[in-house]
C-alpha cells in the first residue's frame, strides 16, 4: 500500500506547531514560508511516486 505516502503529505502540511517559527531562515524567508513551499515540492514527488508504483503494478496485471 504505497498510498501510505499520502499520510506523510497530510502530516507535513497540517502539523502547524512544527513549522510556525522564524528560524532557520533561508534566503531571507522565515522558516514558516520556505518550509511550506518546500512541502509543495515534496508532496508533488510523493504523489508522483505513488502514481508510478501503481501504474507499474497495473501494467504487470
Amino acid at each position, binding site marked *: 500500500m504505497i498510498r501510505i505516502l499520502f499520510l506523510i503529505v497530510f502530516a507535513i502540511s497540517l502539523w502547524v506547531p512544527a513549522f*510556525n517559527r522564524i528560524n532557520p531562515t533561508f534566503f531571507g524567508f522565515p522558516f514558516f514560508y520556505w518550509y511550506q513551499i518546500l512541502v509543495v515540492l515534496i508532496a508533488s514527488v510523493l*504523489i508522483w511516486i505513488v502514481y508510478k508504483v501503481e501504474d507499474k503494478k497495473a501494467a504487470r496485471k
Partner: protein
Amino acid sequence: MKHLVAIIVFLVLIAAVIVMGFMAGRWKGGDLAHIEEWGLGGRRFGTLISWFLIGGDAYTAYTFIAIPALMFGAGAIGFFAVPYTVVCYPILYLVFPKLWKVAHKYGYITGPEFVRGRYGNRWLALAVGVTGIAATMPYIALQLIGMQVIIGALGIPGHLPLIAAFAVLAAFTWTSGLRAPAMISIVKDLLIYLTVLVAIIVIPVELGGFGHIFAKIPSSKLLLAVPPSGSFGAYSGYATLALGSAMALFLYPHTTTGILSSAGPKVLRRNAALLPAYTVLLSLLALLGFMAVATGVDKLPQFAAGFAQYKSSFAVPALFLHEFPDWFVGIGFAAIAIGALVPAAIMAIASANIFTRDIYEPFVSGSKGSAETLVAKLFAMVMVMGALVFIVAIPTKFAVQLQLLGGMWVIQTFPAIAFSVFTRFFNGWALLIGWLVGVVSATWLVVHNIFGAVWAFHVFGYTVPSYIALATVVLNAVVAFLLSIPLNAMANDRHKDETEAADYA
C-alpha cells in the same frame, strides 16, 4: 487616460483571447449539439490540456487577488492557501479517477448524476445539484469583482466594460462550450506564470531582497499567534481551513467538470502530481501581499482612492502600478482579467450541465431530450446574467459572504460523492438528512459568527477553533452513518444502484 499604454496592451490581449474563444469550437472536432461535447469537451483532454484547464479552473482570478489581499491585511493566516492546495491532491488522486470511470461508463456529466445513479434517489441528487449551483453563483460574481478591480485600477470607470466583457463571455460560451475556456486557459496560465515570475524577481531586487521585505512585516502578522494554554488557537484554525477547503475544492461543479472532461483516470493521477506547480505559483503570489506592505503602497496618495474603494483587494494592482512600466502592467492585468473569464465560463457551463441533467430532465421534462444542449446553453446564459446582476445590484460584501457560505454548503456533498465511490454502505435518504443537518448547522454557525469562517468549539475542556465547514461535514457524516443502519434495515435501497462493484476497482 493616465495608463494609455497599459490599457492598449490589456485590450489587445483580451481581444486575442476572445478570438480564440470563438475559434475553439472547431478544435478537436466534435458535434457541439451533444451535451457531452458542448459541456464536457467530449472527455478527451490529455495530461497537458487538463493541467491547464484544471489549474485555470481551481486557481482563479479571485484567488490571485484575494490571497495576497489576505496576506496584506491579516498576515500569515492567508498562507493557509498553500497547504490547502497541497492536501487537495491526495484527495484528487484517491476519489476522482474512480468517479471519472463510473461517469464515463454511464454517461454522467455531473457529480449529482453519479449520486442519482448510485442511490436511485433523485431528491438526493437534486440537493447535491442545487448546492453546487447556489455555491457557484456568488463565485462567478467574485470573478467579476476581481475583474472590476483591475478595470478600475486602469482608470476606466463604470460598469460598462464589465458588462461588455461578460456579454462576450456569454457569446463564446454559447458557441464553443467547454473548449473555449480550455483553450484560453493555456494563454491565461502562461501570462500568469510570466507575470508572477517577473514580479517575484524584480520587486525583491528593488526592495533589497526578501530579508528586507519580511523585516518590514509586523511580527504579529509574520507568524500565527501561539495558542494560549488549553486552546489549539490559530494552529487548528489554520489546519482545518486548509483541510476543509481541500475537501470542498473538487466538489464544486466547475472543478468536477474540469476533472470529467479529461481523457481518463491516468490523466488525473498524473495531474495530482503535476498540478502542485500552481501551488508554488500561488505561494509566491501570496507573498506579493507582503511586498505591498513593504513598499507601503497603501500610503501613497495616488492609490488612496483605489484602497478606499476596493480595500485590501487593491494591494496587488497598486503594487503592479507602482513597480512596473505601463506595458507590463497591461500584461499582468490582462492575465488577471483572463483569469476571471476562464473559471467564470467553466462555472456557467458546469451549472448548466447540472441544471439540465439533475433538475430539468428528472423533474420537468422527464427524459433526456434531444434539446438538452439547448437547455444547457440557455441556463449558462442565466448564470452569467445572474452573476452580472449580483455585481451591479448587490454590494460586494454580500458576494464575499455568500461565497464563504458556498464553501460551507459544497463540502456537505462530500459524503454523498466522495464516500460513495468507495462504499455503498450508506442509505440515500440518510445522506440527504446528513446533508440537511450539515447545511443548516453550517449556515446557522456562520451567521451567528458574523460571517467569520472559524468557530471556537469546546471539546473535552479544550478550545478547538475550527473551520466551520469541516466541523459540520463531520456532523453530517456521523448523522448519515448512524441513520443508514436503521434505514437500510427498514427500506434498503441498494437494489436501486445502477452501477456495479467492478466499476470502482
